[in-house]
């Protein structure tokens, strides 16, 4: 079974749409890690996830870099987390991050490599690579035992996708 799928998007709208597709398929408690350079579209992708989760258009999904944790309510709660500003893993306890990660909400985490090893057991890794001014390579990997069906499903739906 294949655990990895790569999709090419050609605009922020397409990146957002891919996020939305994923958001619609997410089940409670799922964790998504996001990697990608500055300006690669991580927040754009999470905006799509939010849309897929039915979060109101009035709730702007904004960068969590400064606030660390942004919380939104939709079909499931969405926690958008950015660990960039953390340097001490001890601070993670203080933030109550485990309570969030192991909750029934959806956690979308940027800079998840700052988490202590084995904090995450089963999660989706989303890597966004800048390949052109607006084009991005989005690599989604099912890490751990679960979510392989979801990867298959995304592949089936996006492999031959004619973006309009």
């Amino acid at each position, binding site marked *: 079974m294949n655990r990895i799928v790569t999709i090419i998007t050609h605009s922020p709208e397409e990146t957002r749409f891919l996020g939305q597709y994923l958001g619609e398929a997410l089940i409670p408690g799922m964790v998504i890690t996001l990697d990608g*350079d*500055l*300006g690669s579209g991580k*927040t*754009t992708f999470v905006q799509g996830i939010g849309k897929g989760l039915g979060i109101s258009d009035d709730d*702007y999904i*904004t*960068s969590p*870099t*400064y*606030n*660390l*944790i*942004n*919380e*939104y309510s939709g079909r499931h709660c969405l926690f958008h987390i950015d660990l*960039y*500003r*953390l*340097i*001490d893993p*001890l*601070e993670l306890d*203080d*933030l*109550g991050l485990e309570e969030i990660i192991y909750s029934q909400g959806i956690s979308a985490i940027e800079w998840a490599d700052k988490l202590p090893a084995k904090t995450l057991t089963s999660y989706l890794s989303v890597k966004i690579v800048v390949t052109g*001014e607006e084009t991005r390579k989005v690599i989604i990997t099912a890490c751990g035992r679960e979510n392989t069906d979801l990867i298959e499903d995304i592949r089936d739906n996006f492999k031959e996708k004619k973006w309009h």
Partner: protein
Amino acid sequence: MIVLGIESSCDETAAAVVENGEKVLSSIVSSQTDIHHRYGGVVPELASRKHIESIVPVVNEAIQASGRILSEIDGVAVTQGPGLIGCLLVGFSFAKAWAWARDIPVVGVDHLEGHINSVFICDNPPQFPFVALLVSGGHTSIYHVTSHTQARVMGRTRDDAAGEAFDKVAKMLNLGYPGGSIIDELAARGDPKKIKFPRSYLDKNGFDFSFSGMKTAVNRYIQNHQDEYQEQAADIAAGFQDAVTDVLCFKLMKAAQEAGCNHIAIVGGVAANKGLREKIRSQAVDQNLTLHIPPIDLCGDNAAMIAASGFHYLKAGHQLPLDADVYSRIQK
């Protein structure tokens, strides 16, 4: 009425003593700027443990510096949200317990409303109604303010806060993080017209902001000019700052026009940015608007603004019940 203010919503533990919502007797902020530098610029000051360590000495220092004695304090105002739950709870629980033990009232204050009220701590406060631009590391919004406790959001950022875009551009130019204030200094030495960055206005009739694309444009410029960008740093900073402040200034002026206000204000950490202050000041003169900016040390997160806000709730007889809780999200 003398109010003790307490703030712990994010990075800073702060306490202040303010008289009648406008006269600051003391304002203490446990800023750790030197520590940030030692760690290569990343802020290590987020842990609620740090707030727990700081809260008692910071409050004691604020009371001592105010020149007043404990029994002269009439009430307590504390940040209730939005912010990090763990951090908020430290100040909030402390404030409730402290007020309860002293048998004085305590009120909860919204952090953003606190920023708006920071503009009343100056010699020349605005008249209601006025339009306020709140611009900081975590927020960028425009408010129509009709009283000390009533403000309507006219627009807000859809992606990055302006202060965050400044910090990230500083990072791209290897100036450390957070480096928004360094961009301001660097920009003063550069030519804002040399490198032109796009202005993102979204809907020119609306008041929402988007700074993510402008940040990305700087990143793209740096990627495409790997050999020269170090020497051009001042011009890049100036060009970027010019683009961001153009948009902030345009929307603030337009908001004042739409709301029919003659008074405008800039509050929040980025209100300390000289480029922004100068641009808005000169436009305000052109358009016959009176501009109000809090003193520099009250632009960033502080507790004097919380005390200034809380004063109006205390005066109106509000009081938090002991089982009141903090909130993480922006209240609409």
